[in-house]
C-alpha cells in the first residue's frame, strides 16, 4: 500500500469543480443564503456506484418555485405597492441561511453503491412548494 497507489479521484483532489458528477463543491447564493458542500472521495476502489443530490438541479427547482410565488402575487395582487409588500413579506419567511456539509470517503472497496441526500435542500424546496400551494389554494385555483 505504498508508492504508486491508484486513486480513482486523484484529479479531484487538488483542484475544485473539475468533476461535478462525483465531487460537488456547489456554493450558490439565491435570494436566500445557502451553501452546499458535498465531498465524495473514492480511493483505491473499483465498481463504485454513486448516487447523489444534484445541487444545481435543486437550486433551479427552488428558483422556479420562488418565481411561481412571485408570479401568483403579480397576477392576483398586481405590481402595486401592496403586491410588492406581500412579496417582500413572503421572502422574509422564505429567507433561510443554511450550510450543508457532507463528506463521504470510499477507500479500498469494490462493487459498492453510495447514495447521499442533501436533506436540507430537499426540506427547503418542500417548504417553498407548501407556501405556493397554500397561496393558490386560498385563491381557489386548485
Amino acid at each position, binding site marked *: 500500500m505504498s508508492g504508486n497507489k491508484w486513486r480513482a479521484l486523484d484529479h479531484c483532489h487538488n483542484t475544485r469543480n473539475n468533476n461535478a458528477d462525483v465531487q460537488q463543491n456547489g456554493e450558490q447564493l439565491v435570494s436566500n443564503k445557502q451553501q452546499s458542500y458535498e465531498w465524495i472521495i473514492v480511493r483505491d476502489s*473499483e465498481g463504485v456506484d454513486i448516487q*447523489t443530490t*444534484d445541487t444545481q*438541479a435543486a437550486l433551479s427547482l427552488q428558483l422556479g*418555485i420562488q418565481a411561481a410565488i412571485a408570479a401568483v402575487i403579480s397576477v392576483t395582487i398586481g405590481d402595486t405597492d401592496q403586491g410588492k409588500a406581500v412579496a417582500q413579506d413572503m421572502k422574509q419567511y422564505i429567507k433561510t441561511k443554511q450550510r450543508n456539509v457532507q463528506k463521504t470517503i470510499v477507500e479500498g472497496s469494490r462493487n459498492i453503491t453510495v447514495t*447521499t441526500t442533501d436533506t436540507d435542500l430537499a426540506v*427547503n424546496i418542500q417548504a417553498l412548494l407548501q407556501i405556493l400551494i397554500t397561496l393558490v389554494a386560498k*385563491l*381557489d*385555483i386548485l
Partner: protein
Amino acid sequence: MSDSSKKTNAIPDKVIDLIVSNTLSKNGVDLEEIKGKLTAEQKQSLKELVEELTLQVDQFVDKPTSRKKDSK
C-alpha cells in the same frame, strides 16, 4: 389543501397556512376581491404550473438526481 401536497409536507400545513394568511391580511389583501380578478385561463395556467412544480419536487425528494458509475 391540495391532494398533491400530501407527499411534500416539510413544515406542518397549519404553520404554512398561518404564515400565508397572516402575510395577506397584514397587507390588507382581500381574498374574495382577488379571486374575482382571476380569469379562467389564468387559473388553469397557475394550476398547471403548480402541478408541474409539485411533480418535480416529488421526483427530487424521492430519488437522487445525479448518478455516477465508476467503471474502472
